[in-house]
């Protein structure tokens, strides 16, 4: 007579290898992920020279020389730059050109770009 063998008792799944893999995954994601956030700014270096019609002529010249900022020759700083620009633009003349001189650092340029970004309807060109 054929007697069916009783099925062997199922072995419990080993937890050790599971934990191994999970630890490896955890380690990978911990080491390879970053939590820093980034912002970007448009860098549109305008070409110097060339014929320009009157309507394209910039209405604002922002010149940066280190900590020395000037709008159309008038001294400005981080606190009043935005206000001064808002006061002097109109819908027809809203084109600003940034000129960097001397030892202006990239950080200073970005600080200015950040202020200009908050002004509605202003077109900004960075002169080479």
């Amino acid at each position, binding site marked *: 007579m054929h007697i069916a063998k009783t099925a062997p008792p199922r072995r419990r799944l080993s*937890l050790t290898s*599971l*934990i191994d893999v*999970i*630890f490896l*995954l*955890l380690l990978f*994601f*911990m080491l*390879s*992920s*970053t*939590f*820093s*956030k*980034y*912002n*970007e*700014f*448009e*860098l*549109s*270096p305008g070409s110097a020279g060339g014929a320009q019609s009157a309507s394209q002529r910039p209405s604002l010249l922002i010149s*940066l020389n280190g900590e020395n900022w000037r709008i159309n020759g008038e001294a400005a700083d981080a606190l009043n730059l935005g206000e001064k620009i808002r006061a002097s633009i109109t819908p027809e003349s809203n084109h600003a050109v940034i000129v*960097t001189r001397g*030892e*202006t*650092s*990239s*950080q*200073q*340029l*970005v*600080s200015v770009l*950040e202020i200009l*970004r*908050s002004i509605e309807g202003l077109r900004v060109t*960075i002169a*080479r």
Partner: protein
Amino acid sequence: MKLARPPAKPKREGTIALINIVFLMLIFFLIAGTLAPPLDRAIDPIQSQAGEPVPPPQALFVREDGSLSSGGQETSLEQWVKGIGEDQPVLRVFADRRTPARLLIETAAKVEARSGKPVRLVTLKVQP
């Protein structure tokens, strides 16, 4: 006669609890972090508070002295522009905060001229 009771067997630590915690950490890192492309360690990034948010970029790194690197290796402008895929609609540069602004603008202009694509400057976002 009084016999000393055999010491109680130490209870096994709950493996399930351990796995639970590790799983939670794994999920946290999976969701909260983004995979970071290699950054240039020599660069102290430009900081900004506002701007267009972007994920960690595959960028061209401009060091303080104007030398270029990408993916942790020194590179040249031509090499980088050639190596970057055609499918990238915009190219990104990432600069040290002390880089002279002139140098940065010059570099961006060269990249733009070579690739014919718009160039954006990526900065690290900091809390105000």
